[in-house]
């Protein structure tokens, strides 16, 4: 995992299988070099807002894209999305939701909260 300042993509995914498939897809698209992975919503928020284990990061070094699983341990994907879009320092970051959920309410909520795209997990 790359924790340098030049994180291009933040991948938030708890399933190891989905993680591997997403990585594989990104690598095939030559986007695999600057990916940082967090395994739950709480860790993702710590990374983005430079808290906890990521307190030494600078908030200005925002990822260029966030791939966010909808269903995450501790803090779920919708809450992470809401927090990012509510903060003027981070709301500009494009976010793509990754999920196997085809629930219309999840899709509507995500777009309502400002998500930029919606993709099936592992199937980028």
């Amino acid at each position, binding site marked *: 995992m790359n924790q340098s300042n030049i994180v291009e993509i933040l991948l938030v995914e*708890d399933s190891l299988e989905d993680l591997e498939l997403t990585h594989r897809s990104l690598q095939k698209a030559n986007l695999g070099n600057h990916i940082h992975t967090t395994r739950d919503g*709480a860790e993702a928020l710590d990374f983005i807002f430079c808290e906890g284990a990521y307190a030494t990061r600078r908030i200005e070094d925002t990822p260029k894209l966030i791939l966010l699983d909808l269903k995450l*341990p501790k803090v779920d994907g919708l809450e992470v999305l809401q927090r990012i879009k509510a903060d003027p320092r981070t709301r500009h970051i494009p976010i793509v939701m990754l999920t196997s959920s085809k629930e219309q309410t999840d899709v509507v909520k995500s777009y309502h909260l400002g998500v930029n795209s919606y993709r099936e997990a592992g199937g980028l």
Partner: protein
Amino acid sequence: MNPLTLRPLLALLPLLATLLLQWIWPWLQPYAWVLVFILMGVIFSAFYERLRKANQQAVESLAAVRTINEKLKTRVQERTAELARSRESILQSEERLQESDRRLAEIVQGMTEACFALDNDWRFTFVNDRTETLLRHQRQSMLGRTIWETFPQLNGTPMEALYRRAMAERVPVAFEVFSPVAERWLDIRLFPSGDGLAAFLLDIDARKKVEVALRESESRYRGTLDTMMEGCQIIGRDWRYLYINEVAAFHGHRPAHELLGRTMMESYPGIETTSVFTAMQRCMDEQKPMQMENAFVYPDGTRATFQLGIQPVPEGVFVLSLDITERKRAEEKINQLNAELEQRVIERTAQLEAANKELESFSYSVSHDLRAPLRAMDGFSRALQEDCSAQLSCDGQRYLQIIRNSAQRMGHLIDDLLTFSRLSRVPLSKRTIDTRLLVQSALDDLSTVREGRQIDLRISELPTCEGDPALLRQVWINLLSNAFKYTLKREAVVVEIGCTVEPERNVYFVRDNGTGFDMRYVHKLFGVFQRLHRVEDYEGTGVGLAIVQRIIHRHGGAVWADAALDQGATFYFTLQEANK
């Protein structure tokens, strides 16, 4: 014949004799002497008779005078005796009168009423003992002085006017007054006496205070009754309205002045046939309070319902009425709503039963039909591993393993989901459970999990409880398996099982010294498929605690957790204690 009546005749005798002699004398002359003798005999006879009668009359008169004298003498003697007796009596009366005066003076002196006398110059001429104490003045300081000098505080008061009226008009005057002299309430009675006044003063302070207190009390009660939200009536034994407050008058749609003094039968003809009247009569006769609800129809056809409390009182009955028309309407509406609700519950229950049947059918499909493709995935992956592993790269072989793991994991997820779903539908079969045995049974089930591990298992006393043994066994299995799972990385593992007894409920707990969790995410702990740990660290589907919560909630209990990261966790749940 009375001799006095003969006197004129006797005077005429010489004339008659002369006339007789002159006329008849010639013929009578020869017989003159004879005639003279006859005449003289007649005259003497007449005189004699007259004298005899006069004598007799005189004798009779004398006898009568004697009789009268005798009578007079007797009467004089009687009268003298009478006078003597009368004098005696007068003397005795005087003595009695003096005695009576003395007694009267003693009585007046010793009276409980204060008594004094004033002359027409307002000077005290008599003062009894009680006057001294009541008016707080010595007798000597009052006698001879005027009432106005002695008690200047009376000047200009209404009392002074009343004293002056009694004196001037010579009439009795009585009044009750708070005396500035005695500083008490007095009943004062003034009577004209001789040319002055007699005064009688009775101390009525205590009675007056009681009266004032009673009046205040009555006023307070009347005020309370007048302003009560409930209608209040007092009906006499002759069925006359003795008291009606405004609310009661409003309830009856009749002003109080129309009812007061009239009987109920006059005011509401036909009331004697109603249940209210019967209740009042029973209350009067049996002296027992009565409660009832009464629907009243007014002459204009509108209806009202009252809650009536009928109490026996010395005058008759006291009726307290509360207008519950609105409450009754609300109750009717509630009853109607309840009926509708019951109907809806019946309909919903039917819908739910239908939905349950559908769900059962769905679950059957899930457990059988969804497993078929999973079995194919797992089975053919295994076939590839067994038959074609030589043609596969390392990555290929790893991918195949991932496919197999995922298929198996999905099998577990389906199983757990079905278990969770079934828990909501199976009926509870409650009985008294020996918790110690139940825990032991769960531990036996988990023996393979504990195999080869050093676990310090501390089991405290576990009281019996009420519940479904099969479901509660699942609770203990899930909590204990979690405790064993999250202590895997500990060297010295301690798992405690215990209970604290609270009123009406037992609080059971399972405590471990495992990895614990961050309490910030405790609200997610009991959600379906919610996990606070990575699957590669601690495997699981995230359904176990959701199952625990559902079972405990179905038993009417509560479940909660307390933990800290790397410092272990404690899970608590409550159950109703076993019936004693």
